[in-house]
């Protein structure tokens, strides 16, 4: 209890704690990257680890830049920023994968700019801005539509790139924000229900269980009976129609959809990447094989080891202790951020922090779940650990945003 008070009472101490946590995560990432780039024969700053450190330095500058930015600018410009962001993520469709000339990063010359990463922040700000409107009645279902659309628009654009992981993040971050803003749980349930109906429709038992849940929830919600019946029938028929529609698709059409959901599908056969990743993690055991001794990593059985599967490198070389510590750091970071959001007086700031927390947390959970075979491979990097310029800078920007907003001079 005393500790909680210390956290809530001392803004700079909280920020210091966030900084330390992020710093430790970055260090574990660099250690893993060091291992993964051991065999590379290149000058330090040409190696993955060297480049990653450069990105982190740039990230620190970004934290500073955003820290001193006026919040009012962010609040007022939220929607303008949103449309700029949309324009940026559409841009690659028209001018190739590089947006040379359209952004300042081109100055650095070697940066592969991914606007979809920065779009995560922009979506958070946009939704937070909408939800903090003074006249918003959050208990009204209609109030949820705009935030959902704000997420769905970039989702559709990015999904077509295709980048399933990133587009999923856009929609996932909406829900904690809606919960935080006070949306009715029943409404959120109505939104999620059809998705679950479609997904469970392919297996009889899963669908059966889902229908039971649906009945229970609809029965105990004190809503109008006709609405409950309509919802029930809608979800039920969705579940029946989905497999039928799916089977009527031509195989190439099915494949097109499957490819969408399996973007990083490995070239060698089903689940090769996940299997190798699990072998790496599992063979690490409790203490790990030690730095530079991971055979899965160094003999390159482990795919994408700098980026999406960096967690497996930690798992192989530092074992349960190593990955447990990394997860613990993420847990600490998440809880601190939640408490920061809880403490903030103004809704906009609080919601932005929740958005940031969601993005960081879900990135971590989905990435880890994917590397240990709990989820299909979707290609989401692990915050602060995975190699990648746009992403690491985005993460740092989000932390900078938290620092900025937590300095709430108006509470």
């Amino acid at each position: 209890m005393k500790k909680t008070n210390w956290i809530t009472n001392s803004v700079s101490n909280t920020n210091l704690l966030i900084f330390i946590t992020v710093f430790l995560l970055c260090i574990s990432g660099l250690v893993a990257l060091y291992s993964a780039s051991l065999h590379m024969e290149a000058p330090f700053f040409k190696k993955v680890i060297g480049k990653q450190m450069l990105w982190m330095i740039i990230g620190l500058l970004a934290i500073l830049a955003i820290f001193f930015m006026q919040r009012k600018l962010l609040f007022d410009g939220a929607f303008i920023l949103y449309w700029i962001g949309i324009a940026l993520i559409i841009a690659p469709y028209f001018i190739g994968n590089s947006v040379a000339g359209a952004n300042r990063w081109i100055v650095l010359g070697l940066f592969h700019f991914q606007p979809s990463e920065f779009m995560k922040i922009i979506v958070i700000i946009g939704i937070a801005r909408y939800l903090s409107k003074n006249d918003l009645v959050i208990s009204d279902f209609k109030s949820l539509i705009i935030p959902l659309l704000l997420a769905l628009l970039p989702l559709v654009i990015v999904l077509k790139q295709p980048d399933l992981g990133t587009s999923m993040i856009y929609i996932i971050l909406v829900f904690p924000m809606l919960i935080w803003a006070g949306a009715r749980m029943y409404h959120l349930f109505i939104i999620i229900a059809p998705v679950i109906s479609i997904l469970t429709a392919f297996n009889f038992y899963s669908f059966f269980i889902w229908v039971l849940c649906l009945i229970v929830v609809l029965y105990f919600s004190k809503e109008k009976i006709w609405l409950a019946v309509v919802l029930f029938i809608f979800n039920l028929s969705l579940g029946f129609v989905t497999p039928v529609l799916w089977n009527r698709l031509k195989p190439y059409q099915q494949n097109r959809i499957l490819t969408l959901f399996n973007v990083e599908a490995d070239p060698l056969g089903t689940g090769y990447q996940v299997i190798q990743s699990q072998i790496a993690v599992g063979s690490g055991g409790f203490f790990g094989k030690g730095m530079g001794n991971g055979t899965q990593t160094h003999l390159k059985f482990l795919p994408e080891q700098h980026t999406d599967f960096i967690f497996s490198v930690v798992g192989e070389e530092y074992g349960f202790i190593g990955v447990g510590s990394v997860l613990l750091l993420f847990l600490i970071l998440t809880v601190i951020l939640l408490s920061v959001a809880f403490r903030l007086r103004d809704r906009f700031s609080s919601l932005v922090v929740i958005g940031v927390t969601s993005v960081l947390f879900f990135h971590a959970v989905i990435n880890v779940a994917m590397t240990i075979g709990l989820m299909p491979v979707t290609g989401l990097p692990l915050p602060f650990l995975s190699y990648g310029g746009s992403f690491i800078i985005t993460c740092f920007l989000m932390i900078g945003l938290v620092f900025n907003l937590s300095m709430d001079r108006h509470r």
Partner: protein
Amino acid sequence: MFYSQNNVTLERRNLLILIVLTLFVILIARLYQLQIVQYSRFAGIAEANRIRVISREAPRGIIFDRNGNIIADNKSQYNVNLIPFEVGQNENVYGILSEILKIPERDIRQRVRKNWRGQFLPARIAGDIDFETLTELEERRLELPGVLFSLEPIRSFPAGANLSQVLGYLREVGKEELRMIKDYGYRPGDLIGWKGVEHEYESILRGKRGYSFVQVNVFGQEVGEVRNERSVKPKFGNDLYLTIDLGLQQYAEELLGDKKGVIVAMDALNGEILSLVSKPDYSPNLFSGIVRPDIWNSLRNDPDKPLYNRVTQGTYSPGSTFKMVAALASLEENILDPKTRFRCRGSYKLGRRVFKCWKLGGHGRMNLYDAIVNSCNVYFYSLIRKMDIDIWAEYARKFRFGELTNIDMYGESQGLVPDKAFMDEKYGVGGWTEGNKLNLVIGQGDLLVTPIQMVRFAGTLATNGKLSVPHLGLRYFDRDNDRFHYFAQSTGDSIDDISASSWEFIRKTMYDVVNSRTGTGRAAKVRGLDVYGKTGTAQNPHGDPHSWFIGFVQKNEQVIAIAILVEHGGSGGGEAAGIASRLFRYYQKELVPQQFTSRGTNRD
């Protein structure tokens, strides 16, 4: 300044914290399962991932002659192998390989299928590539993922002698065969001895392949040895020593030259074969690795059958060399007093048919001794008239004609000794006449013998009835126990029911066949060496008669029996006897005294 109040409730915050904790616990639980519960399983898989077992082929045992001269040695050849999985969709590989190896793409794919052992295991696509090809492949290695070389020991034949049919050859083990012998460690693409001693002593000659463990990366490239895995060194095959005397063999091969025929020389006391020539033969170097299909087909389709071992597989009429059988039968069964004379006028009339003697003018009055020395047919016609065919056949069988000699060679023929039952069967009762008997007694007609039976026949005559089993395997060096093993020989039957005086009589006549002034085998005479022999001229429907000579010599304690056959060589007294004399002269001068014998030592 702006905005609405943050009115989030404690419940909502706790809800989110609850979700966060739940997901955190799920992840930790899964990590616990992977890293602690299933640790050993995954550790095992990770080890298996990085370690590739490389087999190291073992050379076959070296084949020596009786004196330790190398007959068949080993050399190394480079083979090209392909790992189907690693080539995968990379279709260019086939094109590049086809270009370098000069094999059509289709053939390469076919070979991959033929030698398939699994998609992660190398399948051989080319053997014995030359250095130039190897260099070219090495240069383009980056374009050829999944293509590897293997060093494989193959045969080389440093000796001047061919010994073709004696050695046999190595060929790729067939798929059918493989199913039966898989337990002995054979794999598709392995070489296995076929025919000859390579086949007969396969289990002794064959080495045991070794294994080493190398660390590989995901691309299958070797990145070093694995320290804590023990590699198994390939085990050489055991060295085999043959009874062959390389010098004699080489000389005998030269003697026969381009003629079709046979020379066999055997130690009559123990059955050790000192030389075995079957012509035409072929160079064993054609078979050092896997034989090229065109060579194989030309050998197979050659009308002179070079692959065929005339010594053990060829069946011939023995001609006059077989007269000794009737002579012994007559002596033992008292059919005719050996002093009884018949007049030979050059032909013998039986009913309306006329049976000729080889000497047109006739030999005049002949007793048994004269008849053998001069090889008079008319005498034997008269003799066989008084003898039952079954008695004659019985004596032929005493010498084990019509049976396998059990020589350690693949595919021996047993020949044929016709008796009454056989003749009745073949021609019907009453369908054959005395005339058939007349043919048989001079070694013609239905009687068939193999040269290896004939050399043993000579040996039996030389040793008063010893029936040794002819053999080529002398001993081998057992690498496991570091000592020699001699091959056990059956202690040797002997013909006990023929009296010493009869043996002596035959020996005397055989001596005079060579050494008397009128003997038909005069051409075989060697100064300073007692040569015994008998000639034969076997009529055959294909052309000139085959020329036979069987005989023996004695030197110190050794008795060497020989059989020589020159197909279509004319009279036995000419071609074959001439070769015999030169062979004996070589023996007289050059043959190293026996160093190793099989007598008294048994293989365990």
